[in-house]
């Protein structure tokens, strides 16, 4: 994982408190959405973050976007801690880091025309005069595979795939360096998904973008990512180059996840690892490995000590007591 890091995350923690404290209310519960994750994004590469619902992958993306106030840890962008940013630096950070969200129906304002949607970030950041902006919007529409004629239409006139293209155009309007893609293709039909993935890869080549690709779909993550990290309940269990994760997974959870994906080939057969229980079964897991109650390799030691993310071979880190 050598190369120039654009963004470094160090021991990032985000806790949510559920239930307010009051005289009559119960003791507030703390949900550890992110519990000490560390990784870095290399310039021009795609970092894939996978995991099941509730593992904290979206919280990680939102924390980087400063949509959440982090509990602890550091986010370092191009060598500077983003917490220390002053007003102007904050604005610059917002320009450099943009996002595309999952639901193309919810992430576009239905009352705004496409031109206005794409233009808005430029207005907020006071970039270029109105004529220049219009030209830029038309150019962006062409870049994402729509036509400049679409500029005065409303979002409801577009299909899901086209709306996602509008969302991508909006993210690109400020020439960002890093784009957070939070499940960008999950809501799309299969035939459209391939179009959008191809578009994202083309744009990365053309503009030298860095992606943080958040998804629950491992086959999509494999297709687009250079480095992949697998999350479970706010922690990273395994992190390696894409080839290593998919061809030589070490953590039992990664192995189970990979074997659970149905392969579109009726003649393909394998011994699937079927995990018992689900992520919500958290009872009595204060200590030790969080995955142990679903793990097929768990021993007594797993409930005693919490495994740390350790490098077992170059560019391959695993958090499992049985391996390290």
């Amino acid at each position, binding site marked *: 994982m050598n190369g120039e890091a654009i963004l470094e995350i160090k021991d990032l923690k985000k806790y949510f408190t559920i239930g307010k404290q009051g005289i009559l209310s119960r003791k507030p519960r703390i949900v550890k959405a992110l519990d000490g994750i560390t990784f870095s994004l290399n310039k021009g590469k795609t970092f894939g973050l996978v995991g099941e619902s509730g593992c904290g992958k979206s919280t990680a993306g939102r924390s980087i976007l400063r949509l959440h106030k982090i509990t602890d840890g550091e986010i370092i962008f191009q060598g500077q801690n983003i917490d220390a940013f002053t007003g102007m630096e904050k604005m610059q950070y917002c320009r450099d880091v943009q996002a595309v969200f999952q639901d193309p129906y919810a992430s576009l304002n239905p009352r705004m025309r496409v031109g206005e949607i794409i233009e808005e970030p430029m207005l907020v950041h006071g970039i270029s005069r109105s004529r220049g902006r219009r030209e830029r919007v038309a150019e962006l529409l062409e870049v994402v595979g729509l036509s400049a004629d679409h500029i005065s239409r409303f979002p409801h006139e577009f*299909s899901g795939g086209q709306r996602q293209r509008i969302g991508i155009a909006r993210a690109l309007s400020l020439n960002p360096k890093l784009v957070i893609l939070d499940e960008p293709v999950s809501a799309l039909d299969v035939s459209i998904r391939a179009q959008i993935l191809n578009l994202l890869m083309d744009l990365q080549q053309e503009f030298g973008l860095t992606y943080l690709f958040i998804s629950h779909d491992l086959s999509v993550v494999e297709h687009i990512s250079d480095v992949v990290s697998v999350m479970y309940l706010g922690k990273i269990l395994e992190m390696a180059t894409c080839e290593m994760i998919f061809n030589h997974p070490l953590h039992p959870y990664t192995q189970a996840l990979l074997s659970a994906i149905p392969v*579109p080939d009726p003649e393909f057969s394998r011994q699937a690892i079927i995990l018992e229980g*689900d992520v919500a079964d958290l009872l009595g897991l204060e200590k030790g490995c969080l995955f142990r109650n679903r793990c097929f390799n768990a021993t007594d030691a797993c409930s005693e000590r919490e495994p740390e993310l350790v490098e077992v071979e170059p560019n391959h880190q695993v958090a499992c007591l049985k391996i390290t």
Partner: protein
Amino acid sequence: MNGNEKVLDVRNLKTHFFTNLGVVKAVDGVSFYLRKGQALGIVGESGSGKSVTSLSILQLVPKPAGRIVEGEIWYGEEDLVKKSQKEMRQYRGKKLFMISQDPMTSLNPVFKIGNQIAEAIRRRQNLTGDDLTEKIIEMLKLVHIREPETRINSYPHQFSGGMKQRAMISMALACQPEILIADEPTTALDVTIQAQILKLMMEIRQHYNTSIILITHDLGVIAKFCDYVLVMYAGKIVERADVKTLFKGNRHPYTRGLINSLPHLGKKQQRLASIKGQPPDLLNLPKGCPFEPRCDYSVERCSCDYPPIEPVDKEHFISCWRWREI
């Protein structure tokens, strides 16, 4: 599979929705049959009519906008289209059981899980008191819900998505239907939970010889679970074949495009083959083949006439003017 009796025979089904903007032909002339013990998959993108097909079988098309305008659905000697809603109650939940995509909405939030399963059990058996409780616990055990003795008193919101779907399956088990219709049963679930649910459904099928109609957009699930597949596009079946033929010997450009556009695990490609264009607008369908604007093989004829469904061989049917050349 061959020679087995047909449990369901759908002939030229047309379900249309009459809206202010025009008529939406959600299902437009669909014919297929389901054999005893068969797992039939229906694939297609959103708006292709796969869910409306399943709702039509159960006579649950949203009224008054939706109506079955033509066609027959033969269940044994009976045509379900001609049944009244009252008569349909004899079929729903007893002989035909549906598991829907969203387990959060298919359970009643104000009743305990145990009571809801009891309702399903009582459709089949006349049990009361301790016998009933015992049966409910047995059902929950069958679908691998932990501590069923305490869980019967839980409400749906206390269950996770996977557990709710398993509770639904336990109701299906209690009813022992002849046909289980599962409309995207695993789409809202995580992959590891999806694997559990699919395994459970396979167990039901083996154990009770239940016929299953599985509706999904996930070709991986189809490959793993089904033996026969219908591919739908804009309300019509474009290709139907057994699962091996569909993946290895498909002849329709849409089927081929769908399969090629999937990223393959373990085989990293530079680019994905994609189908150009956008899904069709059901209010303004082209005159000829609805796939024509997106098709790489289209010729002049495709934009004028809809291709009839023709047999390639005994179990393989296709609707394309140029299938012989593809």
